[in-house]
């Protein structure tokens, strides 16, 4: 019975967004609200000799100005939520990330003072009157350079700027031995450059202390209000959680950057009590560039060995990962357990070793950004296998098909156990690539490419990826260093009239949960979608939640909802059986009513729910009401996969790359709303293509972010992109009730290497045998590669 599941139901939330009635944090205005501006360091590395705020404090309209010295010693700063240990077992270096620096600034944008005033404009003006004397020091920005002898230290007590080193997979000697036996070894050195997340809504936070109830409210642009509350209460401010409400209202995009607990959230909360007024802080775009946790920034050296038939025999990867100046909430997990664990890819590689060194630099923090570690792993694998095909003069699609893991459904056949600590749930990899080849018209394309003679170079690039989503089994991630569980909760409250309120711990900031979740609930309960309301984003309304990231909402949050719905139906059957004078086992539930099997005796859902709240004629011993909470902790990650193909044309004269076609065949398990899944894929593709061709965060040698505005940082635009050709195969997830795998990150994970591979293919076929053109592949870089 699927009236809604599998249908492209139009998004229920779009009415308020399209009509401008969305309510974001910055739209919230509280009585007597003051406004904060954070004065930030203009230097990447400097010692503060003195701060003089007297002139600024005297300005009319200024409420208060606080610096690091005004923050109690007990408040050390914002915590890191994931611990990775050194190879020798030592705990990673975890220097404090203070709310405002006391003595030393460590990146451009480091918070130095908070100015609280009657308006943001006054706060900003006053901040300009603060006189700070800095001693400027040398800075280091590159993750590899930071680990070298003599590099300026970000934290005096972190030698070689090394946060941790880490290794996963088979022992290096085994990998080297296998590599030595290889008929061909492909070696590649590359950077996976730093990108800015660029959510359309800049971060914003309002702290409000209510003296009457001795209670705080924090409104914030977050992907996980409960997690923010937990981190801020228990690890930063030491306020009991029941005294704090965190609301994540409408949020305009996150891409990971709004997972993390930021200093500004704690600052406005803490100081709202001290100044006795609500305090709002909203980043301007420039602050977003400087302080939203960035993504990627890996420097990698990898080797892949093949036997004479083209079968992969070994993979060795060395990566330097940039942490920035301080550890953001999940930063250590990204280059390790979200990256190293994915290096099996779709291939049967028997020996894999990955070695990661994470370093501090005088730059903004780097953390999860759409895909988080998995795009880096996919980029590594897919670049090197495409390059190997070129070097060995083999077809890149054939080379992949030859190395794919055989199909397994996770039920009849066991999940595939990788060399790098995971067990894939279900997979059938050849069909996605074959479907993509069919959509491309592969043979015809190769002929067209060979015949090309108009001064343009045609190229085709492949990427066949796998990702670990549905994050995550708590016990597993706990063993890997997570300092949190990664379950999800859901409460389903059936109102007496039969209408249903669903409280989910997932958080929607563009994913369309209000629609997708309602489809699931309406179908499972056999009621109209209009009778279901999805409520999220408020710690006072939703009992608990772990939020939305890692393509987990439907797989984990949706499963929790299903559990609660099933509990409602189980109880409903008991009430219905009582009303129908039958046994619950003799009832069928369909189309919103219970029917005694083989008869026309039935009772509707609404009658049952009313009976639950008006229990006059009611089963003995049964509690009144229809309200169930559930927690769902997945037993495994989910493993979506897919094949992406890019076709590019390079102008030989200018080096300009035109993306002509982009084909994406993804397998995200069962699909609830195809339109929403397509939308997620499209958005992800645009971001992944953006990284390949346009985006790149540039710090100069003194640690200045030199492209911190939309004049200087190139975002992909509609006219840079072709009309995407997307399709799907469906391999259901065997271990969650919906059979879903997650679709939020797939587009961003698969697309980047496909585009880069297409450019490299075009260059090789045009006679320019270059191994790498650094991203973003600007005309200048591509042209230079041809000289």
């Amino acid at each position, binding site marked *: 019975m699927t009236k809604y599941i599998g249908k492209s139901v139009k998004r229920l939330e779009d009415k308020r967004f399209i009509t401008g009635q969305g309510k974001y944090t910055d739209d919230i205005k509280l009585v007597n609200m003051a406004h904060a501006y954070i004065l930030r360091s*203009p230097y990447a590395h400097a010692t503060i000799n003195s701060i003089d705020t007297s002139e600024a404090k005297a300005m009319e309209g200024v409420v208060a100005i606080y610096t690091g010295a005004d923050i109690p010693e007990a408040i050390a700063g914002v915590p890191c939520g994931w611990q990775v240990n050194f190879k020798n077992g030592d705990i990673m270096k975890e220097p404090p990330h203070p709310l405002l620096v006391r003595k030393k600034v460590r990146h451009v944008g480091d918070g130095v003072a908070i100015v609280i005033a009657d308006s943001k*404009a006054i706060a*900003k003006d006053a901040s300009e009157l603060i006189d700070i004397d800095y001693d400027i020091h040398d800075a280091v920005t590159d993750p590899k350079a930071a680990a070298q002898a003599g590099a300026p230290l970000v934290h005096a007590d972190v030698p070689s700027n090394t946060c941790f080193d880490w290794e996963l997979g088979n022992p290096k000697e085994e990998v080297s031995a296998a590599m030595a036996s290889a008929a061909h070894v492909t070696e590649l050195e590359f950077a996976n450059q730093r990108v800015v997340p660029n959510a359309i809504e800049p971060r914003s936070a309002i702290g409000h202390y209510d003296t009457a109830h001795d209670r705080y409210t924090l409104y914030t642009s977050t992907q996980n209000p409960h997690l923010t509350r937990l981190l801020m209460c228990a690890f930063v401010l030491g306020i009991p959680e029941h005294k704090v409400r965190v609301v994540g209202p409408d949020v305009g995009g996150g891409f990971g950057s709004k997972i993390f607990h930021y200093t500004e959230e704690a600052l406005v909360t803490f100081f709202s009590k001290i100044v006795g007024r609500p305090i709002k802080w909203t980043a301007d775009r*420039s602050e977003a560039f*400087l302080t939203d946790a960035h993504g990627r920034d890996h420097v990698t050296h990898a080797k892949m060995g093949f036997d004479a038939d083209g079968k992969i025999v070994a993979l060795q990867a060395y990566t330097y990962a940039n942490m920035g100046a301080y550890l953001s909430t999940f930063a250590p997990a990204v280059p390790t357990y979200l990256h190293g664990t994915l290096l099996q890819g779709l291939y049967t590689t028997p020996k894999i070793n990955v070695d990661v060194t994470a370093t501090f630099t005088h730059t903004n923090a780097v953390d999860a950004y759409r895909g988080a570690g998995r795009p880096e792993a996919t980029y590594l694998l897919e670049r090197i296998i495409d390059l190997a095909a070129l070097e060995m003069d083999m077809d890149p699609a054939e080379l992949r098909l030859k190395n794919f893991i055989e199909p397994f459904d996770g039920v009849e056949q066991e999940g595939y156990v990788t060399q790098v600590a995971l067990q894939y749930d279900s997979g059938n990899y050849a069909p996605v690539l074959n479907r993509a080849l069919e959509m491309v018209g592969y043979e015809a394309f190769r002929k067209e490419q060979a015949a090309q003679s108009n001064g343009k170079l045609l190229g085709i690039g492949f990427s066949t990826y796998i990702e670990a989503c549905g994050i995550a089994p708590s016990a597993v991630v706990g063993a890997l260093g997570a300092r949190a569980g990664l379950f999800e909760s859901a409460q389903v409250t059936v109102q007496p009239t039969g209408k249903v309120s669903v409280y989910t711990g997932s958080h929607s900031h563009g994913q369309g949960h209000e629609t997708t979740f309602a489809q699931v609930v309406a179908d499972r309960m056999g009621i109209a979608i209009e009778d279901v309301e999805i409520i999220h984003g408020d710690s006072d309304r939703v009992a608990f939640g772990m939020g939305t990231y890692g393509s987990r909402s439907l797989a984990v949050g949706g499963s929790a909802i299903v559990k609660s719905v099933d509990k409602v139906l189980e109880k409903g059957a008991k009430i219905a059986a009582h009303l129908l004078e039958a046994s619950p086992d003799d009832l069928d539930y369909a189309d919103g009513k219970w029917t005694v099997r083989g008869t026309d005796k039935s009772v509707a859902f609404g009658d049952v729910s009313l009976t639950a709240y008006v229990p006059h004629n009611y089963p003995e011993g049964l509690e009144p009401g229809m309200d169930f909470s559930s927690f769902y902790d997945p037993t495994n990650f989910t493993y979506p996969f897919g094949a992406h193909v890019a076709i590019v044309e390079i102008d030989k004269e200018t080096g300009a790359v035109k993306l002509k076609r982009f084909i994406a065949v993804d397998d995200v398990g069962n699909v609830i709303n195809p339109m929403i899944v397509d939308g997620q894929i499209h958005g992800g593709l645009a971001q992944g293509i953006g990284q390949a061709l346009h985006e790149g965060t540039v710090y100069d040698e003194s640690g*200045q972010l*030199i492209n911190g*505005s939309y004049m200087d940082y190139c975002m992909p635009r509609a006219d840079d992109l072709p009309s995407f050709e997307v399709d799907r195969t469906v391999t259901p997830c065997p271990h969650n009730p919906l059979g879903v795998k997650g679709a939020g990150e797939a587009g961003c994970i698969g697309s980047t290497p496909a585009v880069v591979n297409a450019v490299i293919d075009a260059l090789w076929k045009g006679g320019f045998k270059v191994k790498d053109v650094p991203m973003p592949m600007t005309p200048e870089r591509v042209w230079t590669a041809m000289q």
Partner: protein
Amino acid sequence: MNVKGNHDFNVSREKLWSYLMDPEVLAKITPGVTKLKTIDTDTYQSISDIKIGPVKGSFKGKLNVQDTNEPASFVIKMEQLSKIGNAHATIQMELADKGANQSALSFDGKAKLSGVIARTGQRVLSGVANKLTKEVFAALEQHIEENQEDVADKDKTLVEETISTPPPVETPQDNTNVVEVQEIAIEPTPIAQQTQTPTQDNTSMFSAFINSIKRLFGMN
């Protein structure tokens, strides 16, 4: 950012040296400088108004002349602070003797930028630096001309071209394309009191740069 250049002057090296060591002359020839105060031997305090595209600010700075080797070389150490960002520069100046009443000035140095000017439009700033350099040389030539009788005609022409007919003053027409940092300008009015009136460009020496920004964003 690297800054480098050289120029020939119709004046003796000794005379050129004396001009460059005279704060009044320096104030006169340095673009945007509205005040130059001697605070100590070889150290000056300057206030200059600079507008780079959408970014406008009043720079307060220190200028220190060191390692003087009269009349052949000296080093300028400059620190310019403003609400739109800071600049720290060290520039090696060389004066060469090229015969009677002929000399050459060359410079080579590095400028480190921070703040808004570092992350907004830095990629086009070297163009601005070149333009500024030309302005300095032209102004110095004009000063030389004013203080000498035997000025060659060709130099007069150059001076007229660059100085006497300044490029038209730019007035941003479309406020929506002006980035927020424009509002940071601390002079003359704090933004709390500022109206939406487009800011008049008070320097004009950046018109080439402004035009390129405008072309870039279709603001004409």
